[in-house]
């Protein structure tokens, strides 16, 4: 017999990572009397993309170094013109305040001898990278602020669906991943902050959890927003990153390139002029790997001892500290070896590329009362500071919204149906294990969806993903932990279908390797200078063009083409 827990709050934040903790803090600051609850399937102390901190800020717009307008221009060019500039502008405008507030909470950013933020250039134009050599305890600091602001936290509960009634978000349901309780949360507004879909493609290592993103981030919010009826956008603009081969984490050029490191081919020659992650850079890497001049490497062997030691002290303490033991176990050293790099599996993540739930400059989705922030919200190249900024915007907007909204009783039939859907694998403990069901699904993603994209292959992929519902029905779980993984496979399947449909819909190539179609190899601005959005309509996944919002910062895209290819070698 499953217990049911009923919870009630004004603002519900699903996911307590970068964006979620900030959303909760800002909502409480906006109205300390109202109730804010963070629902987290791990523990907010060490959850999300920055579980082990971050080694630097990648999008810091600091007065005296750059302006929000310059930042919007750079991202407009890097994202081939497809963006809502008003949303990107928020990251440029509010990022500095976020950094100052984090600083006041005890987060350490690198400063020069005069006490000014010590910015570095990694982007093509402009300085936006602010190192955080002591950024490892970011989540502990955020957790302390969540408690100080008296936001409530429920750890180890995974949300599966947003409740929608009368066209508004009214709460969420899920289950306790340890004791299996069914959990129903009534809320007046819901903020989704569940991170990327990091378990879409299968890493070359074959290890399901050896992903770039924290593997807990399985596209939960993409799927939940879709089922709530919200629009998603740019899903065909995949996340593909240049990573340490096999380890699958960043090498990390953002840290090392300001010290003089650079990406090189096997002969030691540069082939990209800029180490900022873009689809155009990834296309150059893909070409280099296929030209016979690979493998490629992050080259640091030419740097002096002090510099290499400093790079090591940053890379081995923050973000992915196990980089140190990975290199050591292979007997490799930055002084004597280039770091072999490779192309990651595909994922969905606005933090690095552009795919996510559609949000405007207030973090509002297309469903009233439903907000999204962080890697799952469609603000291109938003990174960590963008997650903080949109968490803040979502928290404030949600708190404003709940003033005039009352709680609604959940629909009993809907709850019963969702409960039956969630617990089905537990009724079938000898069913096919989630590991095998997930492995096969993600192997199909690799085989048929990985760029360069091909129509025939994607047709096969789509057919397999649609039919995979039957395979999901065969899954068995022996305990609530396995049930959590089973429900994540449902999210991954939804994301795979969205990725196939959106990629088939946009009949051109754009964003370098992210959407490189063999059969439509050119960019076609006449027909495709628009977003491709999708949503659920009458039970079907519907795709449509959404015009790009008028620019607020002039950019001449005919002249300003993002090109990082190095021709003379």
């Amino acid at each position, binding site marked *: 017999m499953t217990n049911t827990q009923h919870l009630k709050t004004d603002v519900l934040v699903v996911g307590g990572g970068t964006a979620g903790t900030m959303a909760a803090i800002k909502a409480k600051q906006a109205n300390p009397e109202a109730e804010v609850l963070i629902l987290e399937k*791990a523990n907010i102390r060490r959850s999300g993309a920055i*579980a082990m901190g971050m080694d630097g800020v990648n999008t810091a717009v600091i007065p005296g170094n750059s302006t929000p307008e310059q930042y919007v221009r750079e991202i407009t060019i890097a994202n081939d013109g497809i963006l809502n500039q008003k949303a990107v502008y928020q990251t440029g405008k509010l990022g500095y305040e976020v950094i100052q507030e984090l600083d006041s909470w005890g987060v350490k950013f690198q400063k020069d001898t005069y006490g000014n933020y010590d910015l570095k250039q990694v982007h093509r134009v402009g300085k936006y990278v602010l190192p955080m050599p002591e950024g490892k305890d970011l989540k502990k600091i955020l957790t302390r602020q969540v408690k100080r602001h008296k936001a409530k936290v429920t750890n180890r509960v995974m949300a599966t669906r947003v409740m929608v009634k009368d066209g508004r978000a009214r709460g969420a349901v899920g289950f306790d991943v340890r004791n299996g309780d069914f959990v129903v949360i009534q809320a007046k507004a819901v903020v989704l902050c569940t991170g990327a879909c990091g378990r879409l493609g299968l890493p070359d290592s*074959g*290890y399901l959890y050896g992903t770039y993103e924290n593997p807990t981030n399985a596209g939960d919010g993409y799927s939940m927003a879709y089922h709530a009826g919200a629009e998603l956008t740019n899903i065909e603009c995949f996340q593909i990153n240049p990573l340490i081969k096999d380890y699958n984490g960043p090498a990390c050029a953002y840290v090392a390139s300001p010290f003089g490191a650079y990406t090189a081919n096997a002969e030691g020659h540069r082939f990209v002029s800029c180490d900022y992650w873009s689809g155009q850079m990834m296309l150059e890497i893909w070409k280099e790997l296929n030209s016979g001049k690979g493998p490629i490497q992050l080259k640091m062997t030419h740097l002096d001892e002090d510099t290499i030691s400093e790079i090591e002290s940053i890379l081995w303490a923050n973000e992915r500290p196990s980089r140190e*033991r990975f290199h050591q176990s292979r007997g490799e050293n930055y002084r004597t070896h280039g770091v072999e790099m490779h192309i990651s599996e595909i994922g969905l993540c606005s933090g690095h590329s552009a795919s996510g739930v559609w949000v405007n400059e207030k973090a509002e989705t297309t469903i009233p009362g439903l907000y999204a922030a962080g890697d799952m919200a469609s603000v291109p190249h938003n990174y960590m500071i963008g997650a903080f900024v949109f968490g803040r915007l979502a928290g404030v907007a949600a708190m404003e919204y709940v003033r005039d909204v009352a709680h609604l009783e959940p629909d009993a039939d809907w709850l019963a149906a969702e409960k039956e859907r969630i617990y089905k694998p537990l009724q079938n403990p000898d069913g096919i294990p989630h590991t095998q069901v997930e492995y096969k699904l993600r192997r199909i993603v690799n085989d048929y969806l990985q760029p360069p994209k091909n129509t025939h292959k994607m047709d096969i992929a789509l057919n397999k993903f649609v039919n995979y519902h039957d395979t999901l029905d065969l899954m068995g779980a022996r305990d609530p932990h396995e049930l959590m993984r089973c429900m994540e496979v449902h999210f991954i399947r939804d994301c795979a279908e969205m990725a196939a449909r959106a990629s088939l819909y946009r009949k051109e190539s754009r964003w370098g390797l992210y959407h490189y179609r063999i059969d439509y190899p050119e960019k076609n601005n006449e027909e495709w200078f628009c977003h491709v959005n999708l949503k659920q309509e009458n039970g079907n996944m519907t795709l449509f063009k959404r015009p790009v919002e008028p620019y607020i910062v002039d950019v001449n895209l005919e002249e300003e083409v993002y090109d990082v290819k190095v021709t003379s070698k």
Partner: protein
Amino acid sequence: MALTNQRVDVPVIVDESKCLEKCHACIEVCPLDVLVKNPETGKAYMKYDECWFCLPCEKECPTNAITVQIPFLLR
């Protein structure tokens, strides 16, 4: 369906001589929730092979009982 018990080289190694029965530090911080206590011994162990080798378990263990290896397939 038949289920087998295949041997797997797991990334998280617990030194049982150092692990404290009443401590749950590693279990509470694991993002993937893969660590549990052996009910018979009170010692922590890796029950599910789902590791991001992110290290909070190792860093937060008060007795340095935990060693995280890079998963075999990657190292």
